[in-house]
């Protein structure tokens, strides 16, 4: 079944980036995630799919401790990034989020210039020695987000003046500006038109040369198009995890089958 992958296999590595074991998430009394085990490979796009409320976004947010900001949320189990427990009390969540960036569903540029949107992260993390270095990071990030050519002449313009698709790519540029190792994307295309979606999908394929990308999407076709591995969630459980081609041609679990073929899951 490995031959099903038609995208360039040379950039795929089998190296493990994130390993989650027996992860439970509770929101107060609600048991949102039940005993999830997942291995996220480096330089690979991993898609999380499943019906609404299945816990895929909740689980994604565990991977950079975004759930810390919710008072009632409690995470149990082990999540390791390069073998290091990210819930260890010695780990600074702000530092962690520089390594594990996130892009949200709706583009949310800061009410600042395009330049400052991208420069914000490198500034607060002290990644640039001087103004020239910072400018270099901004340009490199905008190029990686495939936005540079469209905005290079108006870096001082407000980020909010861009189109929706451009704003989303700006958010991706902002996320990659801190040189993360993992990029989390929570339905990054759901607010975009088909052309902007295709541009972001092309970008995701580019990004996986450097980063490990984890994407939550409601569009199963998008998961099929952009990912190499797919995890299927249902009612807070991980139902199936496997190579994307296998999941979409011959899934093992009937719940996966029912979900991806558009039957009631």
């Amino acid at each position, binding site marked *: 079944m490995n031959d099903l992958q038609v995208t360039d296999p040379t950039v795929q590595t089998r190296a493990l980036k994130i390993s989650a074991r027996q992860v439970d998430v509770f929101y107060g009394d609600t048991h949102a995630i039940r005993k999830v085990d997942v291995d996220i490979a480096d330089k690979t796009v991993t898609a999380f799919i499943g019906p609404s409320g299945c816990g895929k976004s909740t689980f994604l947010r565990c991977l950079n401790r975004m759930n810390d900001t919710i008072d009632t949320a409690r995470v149990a189990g082990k999540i390791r990034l390069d073998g290091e427990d990210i819930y260890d009390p010695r780990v600074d969540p702000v530092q962690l989020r520089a390594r594990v960036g996130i892009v949200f569903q709706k583009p949310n540029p800061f009410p600042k210039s395009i330049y400052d949107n991208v420069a914000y992260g490198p500034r607060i993390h002290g990644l640039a020695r001087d103004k020239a270095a910072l400018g270099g990071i901004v340009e490199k990030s905008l190029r990686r987000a495939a936005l540079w050519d469209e905005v290079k002449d108006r870096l001082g313009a407000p980020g909010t003046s861009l189109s929706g698709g451009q704003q989303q790519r700006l958010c991706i540029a902002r996320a990659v500006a801190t040189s993360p190792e993992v990029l989390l994307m929570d339905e990054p295309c759901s607010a975009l038109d088909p052309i902007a979606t295709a541009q972001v999908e092309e970008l995701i394929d580019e990004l996986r040369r450097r980063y490990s990308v984890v994407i939550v999407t409601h569009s*199963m*076709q998008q998961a*099929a198009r952009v990912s190499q591995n797919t995890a299927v969630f249902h009612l807070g459980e991980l139902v199936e995890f496997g190579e994307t081609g296998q999941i*979409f*041609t*011959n*899934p093992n679990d*009937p719940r*996966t*089958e*029912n979900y*991806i*073929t*558009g*039957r*009631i899951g």
Partner: protein
Amino acid sequence: MANQEHIVASFDRDLEGIQATIMKMGGLVEHSIAQAARALEARDTDLAAAVRAGDRAIDALQEQANEQAVRILALRQPTATDLRTILSVFRVSANLERIGDYAKNIAKRSSVISQARPISGTASGLKRMGRAVELMLKDALDAYIQRDAALAADVRERDQEVDQMYSTLFREYLTFMMEDPRTITTCMHLHFMAKNVERMGDHVTSICEQVIYLVTGELPDEDRPKQDRTPYEQGGG
């Protein structure tokens, strides 16, 4: 195996429609085999002509099934079982179309043979073989519509019997031809007809393999034992 209904009910109707086309095609092909065998036995050239004319309807249904399948691929992007269902439509309809062609060829040759002097005892073996393949096809189509991989595997095994019958007929015709060279023309036609029936069995086997793929997601991998020894026959004897 998903046997639940789709949330979008029209998808289910599309899939049912395309299956119905395949079953209709299968019914016509079964009928063709039976009629071709009868035309041979009864030396009925009108019936043989009807079989030849009937092949056009089978070809038209294949085209229809393929168009429906392409449409579903483009409009619904099927996955998993749905995807395998659509793929099976292309394969199974092609198999059925080929079987229909062989029946047509048998009918054509039976018209020629009907003009020649009958050779006693030659028709029954061929008729039996045709009947065996017809039953195999019926069961294969049942297995297809009921998604019954076990039945499909069983039918697939039965092709060995057809291969054996073919080997027997091959030797029988050889004997006739050696004993009386005036039977050569007829026996050559009969031999081609037997070969046609044997090839029909192979296409039925291929349909069974599609059923197994459709149900399990994997093609059966072990090689089927071959009972047709004629490629190694020396003749003479």
